């Protein structure tokens, strides 16, 4: 596949890296010379210097034969124009990053076919949705839903005092079926067997039916908490979108923002949220507003370092769970190590969302877990996937690192055992460790 990426910012870089690693031909168009050099040095892609809406430049990289154009510059209008131009050259799929809320709402502009945008993506909205998703299961590090929401995958952090620590997986029994798909131990992903133990400090990937997950968590010593109050520091766009989502769920939302004018703006846009004018790193203010009683504390300022600092402070003051927005992806592993529960990077999330979209259309959804250490696929089986169907799962000969996490048939989801037989029309959730990711597609394509 030939892909053109316009804008080599964090998102563009990340997408280019992944696509190139998967063996696609990637062209990157970047207007900044220094950035161009950085990309050229680090990635196996062709980098062009120039404007993404320059038709001569696009023709020079043979745009007519491109399958995919991803416009992710800082400039919404340029992104939209590039997609429009790509449409004229017959590019099959286009993605545009559009941040301004007045463009990305469902309106005449967004739905205009002349724009030729297949996916309009708003990083801030994506980040807000991600945080909102985590809030629904606050004890988890990450939450993903599959099969129309009937299957849940949780990433859980096992603490020292967790009662399940030290047990072998086969000894963990509950009322319901569940699957421990993987264990992340000191940056290595293990696809566990029955006699593998759970150790303190592990991150466990747990798959179960959504309606049974509450019970299943108890097997691993987790108790579902309900989030009532959320405190946000920094009135960024992410904070705004998040507050909007949380308001709808009836949660108590407080936003602390330094700029008075911006506070006024937020107060006008939001209905119930309490907008506080002040410095998020002011301990007195945090305590007056009850940070010690908040269920969730999210730091969303523009400044990574400040986010880390205030999250740590909030954690110390007694906030039950803290999330920090961090733009620099190289900080990410560090943050969770210092004690902040979750680090969120809007750009990485956006890159993931774009990748999910551009991959093979047989995949209903793809999730990248823990910065690429594992991926989860949701696909619908068809009669051509002969290696997968009409055989018990234990006889499929699935490569190491791949497992079938759940099966969705006749509107009902089950966690399959080795004796279950897959059939055409089934929706399945495949869990793949990073090393095995390439084999998944291969395995599905193989006929015979």
């Amino acid at each position: 596949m030939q892909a053109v990426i316009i804008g080599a910012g964090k998102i563009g870089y990340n997408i280019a890296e992944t696509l190139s690693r998967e063996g696609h031909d990637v062209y990157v168009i970047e207007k900044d010379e220094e950035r161009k050099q950085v990309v050229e040095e680090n990635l196996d892609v062709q980098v062009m210097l120039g404007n993404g809406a320059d038709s001569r430049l696009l023709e020079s990289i043979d745009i007519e034969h491109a399958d995919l154009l991803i416009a992710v510059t800082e400039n919404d209008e340029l992104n939209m124009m590039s997609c429009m131009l790509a449409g004229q050259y017959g590019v099959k799929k286009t993605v545009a990053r559009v941040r301004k809320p007045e463009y990305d709402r469902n309106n005449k502009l967004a739905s205009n076919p002349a724009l030729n945008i297949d996916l309009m993506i708003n990083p801030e909205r994506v980040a807000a949705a991600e945080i909102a998703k985590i809030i629904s299961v606050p004890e988890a590090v990450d939450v993903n839903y599959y099969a129309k929401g009937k299957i849940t995958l949780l990433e859980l952090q096992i603490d020292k005092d967790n009662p399940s620590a030290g047990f072998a997986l086969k000894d963990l029994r509950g009322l319901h079926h569940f699957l421990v798909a993987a264990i992340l131990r000191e940056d290595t992903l293990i696809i566990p067997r029955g006699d593998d133990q759970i150790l303190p400090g592990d991150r466990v990937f747990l798959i179960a039916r959504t309606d049974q997950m509450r019970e299943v968590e108890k097997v691993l010593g987790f108790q579902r908490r309900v989030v009532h109050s959320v405190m946000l520091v920094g009135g960024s766009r992410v904070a705004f979108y998040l507050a909007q989502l949380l308001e709808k769920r009836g949660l108590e939302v407080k936003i602390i923002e330094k700029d008075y004018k911006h506070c006024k703006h937020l107060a006008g846009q939001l209905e119930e949220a309490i907008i506080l004018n002040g410095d998020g790193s002011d301990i007195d203010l945090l305590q007056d507003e009850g940070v010690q009683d908040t269920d969730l504390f999210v730091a969303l300022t523009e400044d990574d370092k400040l986010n880390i600092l205030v999250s740590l402070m909030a954690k110390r003051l007694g906030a039950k769970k803290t999330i920090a927005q961090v733009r620099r992806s190289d900080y990410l592993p560090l943050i969770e190590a210092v004690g902040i529960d979750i680090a969120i990077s809007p750009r990485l999330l956006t890159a993931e969302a774009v990748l999910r979209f551009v991959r093979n259309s047989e995949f209903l959804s793809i999730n990248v877990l823990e910065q690429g250490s594992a991926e989860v696929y949701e696909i619908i089986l068809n009669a051509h996937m002969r290696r997968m169907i009409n055989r018990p799962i234990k006889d499929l000969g699935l490569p190491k690192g791949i497992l079938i996490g759940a099966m969705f048939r006749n509107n009902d989801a089950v966690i399959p055992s080795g004796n279950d037989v897959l059939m055409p029309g089934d929706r399945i959730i495949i869990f793949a460790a990073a090393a095995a990711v390439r084999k998944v597609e291969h395995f599905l394509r193989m006929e015979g």
Partner: protein
Amino acid sequence: MGKRYVWSNIGSLLVIVGVSMLLPMAAGLYFREAEYKAFGQSALATIFIGLLLHMATRQRTKKKRISLRDGYALVTYGWIVVTLFAMVPYLLTGTFHNVTDAFFETMSGFTTVGASVLDDIEGTPQCVLLWRSLTHWLGGMGILVLFVALMAGHGTGAMQIFKAESSGPVQSKLEPKIMETARVLWCIYMITTMIVISLYCLAGMGLFDAVNHGFSVISTGGFSTKVLSIGHYHNALIDWVTVFSMFVAGINYSLYFYALRTRSLRCFVHSLELKVYAAVVVIATVAVLWFIAPGYHYNLPLAFRHAAFQVVSILTTTGFITCDFEQWALPAQFILMLLMLCGACAGSTTGGIKIDRHVILAQKAVQEIRRFLHPRMVTRLKSNNQLVDDDVVLSVMTFFYIYLFLIVIGTYLVCMLGGGMLDSLTAVMSCLGGVGPALGAWGPMESYSSAPVGAKWILSFLMLLGRLEIYTVLVLFRSPFQKRKHKKQETMLESLEENAILEPMVREK
């Protein structure tokens, strides 16, 4: 230049009023009443003087920007001058024999209060009755809004006038041009009036009465052609038509405009003020019904009809009546008294404090209470789905204060002049709010003719204050204070200069 501007426009205003006197004259001719002459004479005189005034003060030079004060002066003085001319027919026809009564009746007409000093209504010539209703109709949407709609090319000045006369805390233009906005409003006003008149005809009212009541109900005035008001008919259908029309007249006119433009009723659903307005009607009706049901021997359909009619009539500050609500249980009367302070939606023809202001005040109150817990909280208010500036909120709070202050002062003055306590209080509330009937001596079954002369003048002035929403009138009194302030500032500057504090700045230049 300001004064010339004001008087030349008042001249044009008089022409409009003079022309409108031709309608009762035509009615007089049709009904073969001798009083048509009086209208012909006053019409001629008014038009003539108006033209003269306009010519004499017309500006030869190109228009300059007019000041805010000129806008307010034009509206306030305009209303007073127009009232002085419009009362002439009452005197010429012999309906009233003194200036006090004629002025009171005319002011009550234009300000759509509907408080009358006319006792023998059925014995009054029909052309005079039509003139009474017509003053309501002209004053309802506003004589100056009509003036803006008819006379083109006023630019920023027209916006000033429009703002000064329209009701509610925030005025918005419906069309890019203020003249178009005024025309659209008058169009909606005329159409609703026609609809109401035809509804009355269908309900079995005679054409003449239907026209009079139509004018009166859409302007939420309250003058009737019958002593017993709508109660004269004892007709459930007419009662319900009136309730419906009064309710409709109490809705913000811009909502009708948006509904017509977007061809959907969505804007009605989204309006918080409208919801509150409807809720107040329902709650007040149910409460009144609860208290009066025993008095009606549990004849619920009749009690409900009377309760709904009186509640909507007082709330929309119309002042029509179908029964003597002074016979009701006291709690029910008290509810009606409270409704006088409420008023309907802003941007309608109703008077009073208005639902929009109450909504803003209530929201602000809740926010301030929350702020005790969160001292750093930043808040915003919405009214009619639009953000409201803090300045507007403050001005609404001040409005509320002045409004209550006027009630207190007014009551005190009327009491001094010989009114009873309850009579004075409710009369002041009623006249300031544009309702009409009060409780006690000037209750629903009585007229204000028994009021002392001084009280009539005070009430007339309160009517004007209420109709022009206080600020427009009061700013004209504030000017002496402002001038003194200016002087203070000047002296301060001088002393600053003496102390050479400003020197470095001068040097830099």
